[in-house]
Structure formats: C-alpha cells, structure tokens
C-alpha cells in the first residue's frame, strides 16, 4: 500500500495504490491523520490505482470527511473502480463524498 501526496496551491492530491485492506490502512493511518490537519483545503483522494478497500480504509476516508466538515475544506474522491463503488454503495459513502470520475 502506497500513498503519494502532492500539493498544488490550495489543493492536496493523495494518490493511493494497492489494496487498502486492514494492514494497508493501518500502514497509512499516520500519514492520513497528519493530512486531517489540512482539512481546510481541498483534498482529492485519487483512487485510480486503488483496487480494494476494507472498512479500515473507509474509516480513514470518513475521518477525513468529518475533519473537512469541521475545518471547511473539501474532499473529492476520484476514479473509483467498480468493486470500490459497490462498497461505497453498500456503506452509503456515495452520499457522503463527492465522487469524480476520470476525464
């Protein structure tokens, strides 16, 4: 599980790659918690290379979403694959996040 964070102006882009399963989510949790401090900005969660997400990963997404709500920032989820979309559907996350598809 890899996380690549790039900053451009007021926008932070987080690129995930690999499987955000329980150990994967555990792995990136420190970085993601740090990112929550900047939730006043626009954070794009790029899932193009993310193949799998479990509830641990969903919790990270939800934590960021709650932080953005607190701090007035914005979370955008980009390019989720079908299996993750179905997980978002099952958990009601489709209603909680702004989802952007690839150009």
């Amino acid at each position, binding site marked *: 599980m890899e996380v690549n964070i790039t900053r451009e102006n007021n926008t932070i882009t987080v690129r995930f790659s690999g499987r955000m399963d329980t150990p994967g989510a555990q792995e990136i949790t420190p970085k993601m918690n740090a990112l929550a401090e900047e939730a006043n900005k626009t954070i794009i969660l790029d899932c193009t290379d993310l193949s799998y997400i479990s*509830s641990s990963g969903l*919790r990270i997404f939800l934590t960021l979403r709650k932080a953005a709500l607190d701090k007035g920032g914005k979370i955008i989820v980009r390019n989720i694959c079908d299996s993750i979309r179905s997980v978002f559907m099952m958990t*009601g996350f489709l209603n909680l996040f702004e989802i952007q598809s690839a150009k």
Partner: protein
Amino acid sequence: MRARLMLVIVATITLEVTAIIQFVYAQREIKREASLRAKSELESAEHKIMDVVNQAEAAVRNSIWVAEWCLEYPDSLVRIPQRVVSENPVVVGSTMALVPGYSATYPLYAPYVARDLETDELRLLSLATDEYDYPSKEWFTKPIELNDSYWSEPYFDENGGDILMTTFSMPVKDKNGTIAAILTADISLDWLTEFIGKIKVYPNAFNIVISRSGQIMVCPVETLVMQTTVDQFASASEDHEALEQVNQALLSGQSGEMPVRYQGETNHVYFSPVERTGWSLSIVLPEKELYSGVRRIGMLVMILQLLGVAMLIVILRVVAKNQAKYQRLNEQKERMENELHIAREIQMAMIPKTFPPFPERKDLDLAASIIPAKEVGGDLYDFFIRDEKMFFCIGDVSGKGIPASLVMAVTRSLFRAMSAHEDSPAKIVASMNNTMSETNENNMFVTFFCAVLDLTTGRLRYCNAGHNPPMILTDAIRTLPVEPNLPLGILNGADFVEQEITFNYDDALLLFTDGLSEAENVSHEQFGEARIEAALHGRKSSEDHLKNIEQKVASFVGDADQSDDMTILFIHYLGHGNKKSYHLTLHNDIAQIALLPEFVETVADQAKLSLETTSNLNLALEEAVANVISYAYPEGTDGVVDIDACVTEHEVSFVITDSGKAFDPTAKEELDINAGVEERPIGGLGIHLVRTIMDTVSYERKEEQNILTITKTY
C-alpha cells in the same frame, strides 16, 4: 365351585321355605273351609231332621184336642192313633195309652196302630199286655214325669223287627187338667240312617248321630249302632280323654269342633245338637283325607322344586363348563397374542435398531423408528452399507396381523438378498416383485421405496413401488418426485422406473409409511403431509427430527387409538458429494490478513465466482477475521483463527473459529447508511459489510470457541 354350591343351597332353602309356608297356609285354609262345610252340612241335616221331627210332633199335637174330647168315650179312643198314623206318612205307629186307673172300664188300655212298612196297611194291636207292660216304658213315664211332650231314646221295634224307632209322646189331659193318657207317634229312624249316611263332606268322612244318653244311633260301623254309648266307646279307645271331652260336649248339647286321635289318625269332629230330640249330629273328618289334596299338591310342588334345583345344578355345571371353556379360549388367545408379540419382536430384531448405526461415519446421520400399532402390522425399513453405498428401503405390507408380518419378513429378506450384488434400485425392486408375485397366493402386496445412495458422490438412485413419496430437505422441503410404479407382488414382470438426484452436503430425506401421514385424531382428521412438512423445519440432528415428528404426531392424535404401524426413516447426508472444503489457519496478527485474497481466490475459483463476488467475499471474510484479530485476543497474546471454507453447488460458506474471549459481532446495531457526515459513527462498518455481502451470518459460542458462520448462496 363354592359360589355355585352356595347358590344351590340358597335356592333350595328359599324354594322349600316358600313351599312350607304355602303348605301351612293352604292347610289352615282347607281346615277353615272344611269347618265351614261341616257346619253347613250339620245345619242342613239338622233342618232335615227337624222337618221330620216337626211332622211327627204336629201329627200328635193336631190330634190332642180330638184325644181330649174322646177321653169321655173310651171306645172311640182307638180312632185317635188310627188318625195319627193314617194322616201322617212319617208316622209308622201310634198309641193312645191311658194312664192306668184313669178309666174304670179299662184299667190298662193302649190301642196301637202300626203301619206295615211293606204293604202300607194299618194293623191294630194292643200294648196293654202283661209282657209289654206299657206303663213302665220310658215313652209313657217321661211325659207324665215332665208333664210335657217327650222324645224317647231310640230303640229297636220289638214288633216290627229290626227297625230303629223313636217315639214322640205327649200327655193328654182331661177337663180337670189331669193327665189321662199319653198319645204317641213312632217314627222310623231308617230314613235318618240313610239320610245321614248320604252326607259325605269328604269321601272318607262319616257322620254319627247319638242320642241324649250317648247311645250311638247312626254310625258307619253297624255293630255299634244301639249297642254302644260314646262313653263306652271312649273308654276303650286310645285317645279316650279327647273322646270323653267330645262326649261331654255332645251330651250337654253344645256345638263345636274338636280333634280326636283314633287308630293313629287324627280326625276332626264337628258336632251340633238337634233341638228337642236331645240328639247330637257329628261329622268326623279324618285329617289325612282333609289334607290329602293339599298334601298331594305340596308333594308335587316339592318334587317340581327338587327338579328345578336339579336343573339349576345341571345349568350351573354347564355354565361352569362353558366358563372353563372360555377361560381356556382366552388363555389360548393370550398365548397366541404373546407369541405374536414375540414374533413381532423377532421381526423387529431383523431390522436395524441401533442408532447411530454407523458411528464411525461422519458423512451420514441416520435415525429410524417403527411405532407398532396394537395389532401386529407389516411395516418395515432397512438399510446397510456396501461398497460405500448405502442401500435403504421402507415398505408397508397390505393388511394387518400375522399374514402381513410374515410378508414383511419375506420382503426384508428379499431386499437383503437382491441388493447383495445389485446396485440398481429398479433392478432390486423388479427382482423382489417377480419373486413375490410368483408365490403370492394371498394377493398381498407391499408398497416399497428402495434407494441406493452413493456416499462418495451423493448420487441417489431410487425406485418407488407404489409407496408414499418421501420428503426431501435441501434448501427447501418438498416431496420427492416419484414415478407411479406398481407395488410389489401385484404383477409378475412389471416394469419399474428408476429415478435419480444428487445429494449435496446437508441434504436429507424423510421416508415414512401412511401410518404417519394418515395418523388420525379423535375427530378423524389426518396428520397429513402439510403437518409433516411443517414439523421438518429447522436444523436438527436426525434423531431430533424423528423425536420432534413423533411428538407432533402424538399431540395431534391425542387419545385416539393408533390404527396402523408408524414408520419413519430420516437420512441426513453429510458427505462430500460435490462439496469442496478449504482450510486456512491465521495467527492473531493483522498482517496475516494479506493471506486472505489468495485463499478466497482458490475458493472462488472452485465456485466459479465473478471477480466482483470474489472481491466482496474477500471483503466480508477480511472484516470478519479482522474483527476477531482485533477483539478476541488480548494485546500481546498469541492466538489462532481457523477458517473453514466450503463450496457446494448452491453456496459458499466460511466458518471462522477462534478460542478467544466471547465476542459476538452480530450483536452490533445495524448501521444507518443514510445518516449525514456528522452523525455517521466511525465504527460498525465492518460487520455492516459482512451482513450486506453475505446471505446468512450466524454466531455461536461453543466449547470455549467463537464460531462465526457466514454463507453466500447463489
């Protein structure tokens, strides 16, 4: 025996006592009757005598005034007796005897006119002879002495021979009132003897007339007549006291009755005086005669009663004999029933009765039972394993009783024989049918279901010969489709169609006889297949299923009698069949979760699942396992999580087992996925995903283990 004797004794005593009472009353009644009859006879005899007596008296009295008038003309005195005799037929003789010395002309004068009884001519005689000396005669002296009329003692007529006579005398007075003469009228007592002799109250009763001095005037024993007084007779007799008493009564002019013993016999004497004459009439009734009728009847009754008692004894003996016969029959019946039960037990011993029958086998859970009706019936079931195949059958022989149970034994033997080398149920059934119909002289038939279950592959071949179709329990409960083959024993050479299905892991089959489906309650409703199906719901062991059904039937039937055998065979297949199992053991380390995708992929490959379903299964399993790793074991301790996956045609299931502290993830509240960002809790997503992805999620805490089973069907 004793009761019978008592009965006879009581009956006899009752009958005899009744007879005696009846006899006593009858005797008393008869005596009363006899007394009344005797009295009335006495009365009528007395009237008759009085009639004659009155005639004689009247003859004299009517001539008295003439006699008194004639006193002054002694020559005409002879005409007085003439007149008395000629004008009165009852009078046989009469005299007008002058008191000696009254007439100067005739110191003694007594012209006597007598009627010749044969010629009816009157003869004139004189009583004034020296030999006769009439002034000394009683008939002459008594009236003078009494200055009144007088009836003499009876006497034998000295002139006319043997005729018994009596004389009525009356004084004839002159103008001065002096007794001048005695006018008499003789009457013969022959009529009396004849008349009294005719009175027969009873054939052997007799009558006696005695005079005022006790002289016997009329009596059946002629030698006693005028020879003996009662007094003399009494003193010579054995019961003289009684006779004397009678005599006293008679002499004093009483009437009444008295028992007198004479020559060993008791006689009843009824007596009554005859007015004026001083006579006494007696009727003597021998008691023997009096009671002879009632004694005869009494004897007859007694004989009849004894006959009745004899008959009673005979009847009792016959009844007792029959009773003994019935008792023997009953004993016989009991013995037969006993033997039948033994036969039944032997039969029951033929069929497998030990459960579980194959304890070493994990792929089979089997239970069966026969609840026999009161009467022996012909239900059977059987099963055995040969070459990893289980052969089993259930059958119901038509009819009941010994024939049915014998056919049942034959059927079972044939099943064993035919299935020893044959794997096809249709062929087994066909051979059984041919053998049975060849020798079926009693037209008995057997409904029969025969099946062969390949325990390795789950292939179930079966052939139903007219039996009620079994129920199959897979994902649903339904009736196993069966071809309408004929029952066994009906048609030699009949065709039997074989059918086939495949059993998967956990599939089950319920076989039963109509004793179950047609079990009736008191209102004659049948248990029916719908109730059987309802009883089969829920996961249970075969034995529990069996018990449950039996309990349901019992409470349905209630107090109604079980009319038919009830046989149930429950087969629960736990073999592999098409099932594939996989196993993975993880340590309680989150990093181990990385091993799941490969495991899930292997399972999904077997199940030929889509990528999306595979991914979902992976997610569900990860969530379930992560939960265990995170919560079951305390930090720093080493624990294990076992995952057993199972793939069948219809489903894939994972059983996650750990030995950690009790933790039920299914107890968590359902997540509200429509809540807004602020309200959404961070936790609860994992179990929500498991629930959403899988079709069933069940948790069990067993033997210190958490067992979570999650299943996905497709």
